[in-house]
């Protein structure tokens, strides 16, 4: 399988000890490092405010518009430094982010939304048309609703639309932020299934930020666990699933039965895992 630990796989994206500060004062990431191998699904796990989204945005360089900046460390894609590239250039290089909360263009139709994904492409219209059909074949529901305004589609459809829109840019790597947010478990399965399909059939590399540890670890190859701006643990997804700490804190399973929240917190304070 495609595990970064075995380093056989070519590393596409490498984040090296980055620190991110919002508004010049709020320190959010305190030295995060990770590697994304080509052709894999790498999961970034952790609770609210752990820094998952910030990490993704640091990579795609969407931090600037939120007054955040990378103050330390480096981010390389295919060995090249990408810390100062604007998002448009990254999209052209094949790195695109699907933001948390879908962010579809509400007043555009579904098809128009998909077409905006092809904004940076310079190839001919027929190639774009073919890719549009391909997206529709992965998401048949979008085809049914192609003429309706995106704002009136359901949450699941919007998530599909957001992924489909990213696909229209012919990406090599998709940074997928919280695809399960606000969706029914069945839909979450469906969307993760499509992600897995895209990964296997189209060879798209995924870096996935997700709170739903259970689902994410089933579909990912490798996982990083973030806690208040630091990577506290990483490993192949299968190992993480079996890890007692992960089981207790993220999967809600414990040998000693259910613990009260207070005990959990003190436990966590005593044992800081790594770093």
């Amino acid at each position: 399988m495609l595990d970064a630990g075995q380093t056989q796989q070519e590393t596409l994206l490498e984040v090296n000890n980055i620190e991110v500060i919002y508004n010049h004062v709020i320190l959010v990431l305190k030295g995060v490092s990770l590697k994304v191998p080509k052709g894999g699904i790498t999961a970034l796990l952790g609770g609210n405010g752990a820094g998952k989204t910030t990490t993704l945005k640091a990579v795609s360089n969407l931090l600037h518009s939120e007054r955040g900046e990378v103050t330390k460390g480096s981010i390389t894609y295919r060995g090249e430094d990408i810390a100062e590239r604007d998002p448009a250039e990254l999209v052209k290089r094949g790195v695109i982010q699907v933001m948390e909360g879908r962010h579809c263009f509400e007043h555009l139709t579904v098809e128009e939304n998909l077409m905006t994904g092809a904004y940076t492409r310079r190839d001919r219209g027929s190639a774009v048309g073919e890719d549009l059909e391909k997206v529709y074949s992965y998401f048949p529901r979008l085809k049914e609703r192609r003429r309706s305004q995106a704002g009136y589609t359901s949450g699941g459809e919007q998530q599909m639309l957001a992924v489909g829109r990213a696909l229209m840019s012919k990406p090599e790597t998709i940074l997928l932020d919280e695809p399960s947010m606000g969706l029914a478990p069945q839909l979450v399965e469906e969307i993760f299934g499509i992600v897995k399909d895209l990964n296997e059939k189209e060879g798209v590399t995924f870096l996935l930020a997700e709170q739903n540890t259970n689902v994410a670890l089933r579909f990912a190859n490798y996982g990083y666990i973030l806690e208040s701006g630091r990577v506290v643990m990483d490993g192949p997804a299968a190992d993480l699933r079996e890890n007692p700490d992960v089981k207790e804190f993220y999967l809600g399973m414990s040998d000693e039965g259910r613990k009260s929240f207070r005990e959990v917190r003190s436990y966590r304070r005593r044992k800081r895992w790594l770093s």
Partner: protein
Amino acid sequence: MSAAFLNTLEVMANGLMAGVLYALVALGFVLIYKASGIFNYAQGVMALFAALTLVGIMEGQVPFSHLINAVLGTDVHHFGWHLPALVGIVLTIAIMVLFAWFVQQVIFKHLVGQEPIILFMATIGLAYFMEGFGDMMWGSDIKTLNVGLPQGGSFAIEDITRTWAAEGERYYGMYIDNLDMIATMVAAVLVGALVLFSQYTKQGRAMRAVADDHQAALSVGINLNFIWVLVWSLAGFVALVAGIMWGAKSGVQFSLSLIALKALPVLMLGGFTSIPGAIVGGLIIGVGEKLFEFWIGPLVGGATENWFAYVLALLFLVFRPQGLFGEKIIERV
């Protein structure tokens, strides 16, 4: 047809055409507001600046001549050429595009993600800057703008309508201003072109995408800076058209920048985010104020045109704040 009915028709026709001119100014506001959420206080001054630049270029005026003469002790005022209107318009468009780029690079690029009120304040600053800059560049005297548009009433319409009156009634035909008719046609073409552009081109689609969600637009690789320069250029172009029409009507002078005030009620009526809204709002206000003046004016001592639009806008603010065509906020829970 009775003369009274024909008079009413004439008033309405004139109102419609006045409305088109209001709509032209309002259109500039809508373009920028939709794409960037900026309420551009400087839109009226942009129209003035565009008209000043057009006159200056056509007349071969030396820009900043007062400044140059004062500093260098020279005495230059004139290049000694007269350019045809079309060349002047093309050059002015180029300058307005340059201006759009300048505004984006110097001001709004640094204000991304700021509160709307801050952006609004920035445009107030911009308005005052441009006012002074325009003065310094082209001088503050009143200029006549002659781009070859016909002036005065249309005799053809006067002759035709004279025959419409019933037998035995004294009626001299409708007075319809030629310039107003041309302005109406130009505005119709302009709006049609803008709608086609925003609906069916890649950049137009990107423009609407940016209007919906800046962050998402950024994430799919749309260059916000480019789109905003594009939008400000379009607004500059619309300002130029408005400047030409109003300038040809009443001369190019400072008061031209005050037409922006007439556009405000239009926006409140039509909605700040709708291009068709700006047009319909303009027409309603144009016709409304003329008819009101015609019917009610004599009863209250006239001069109702000064306040009618604002009172109407006030009513709209109370009962339908998003305007007639303003975008409904789509909210899913």
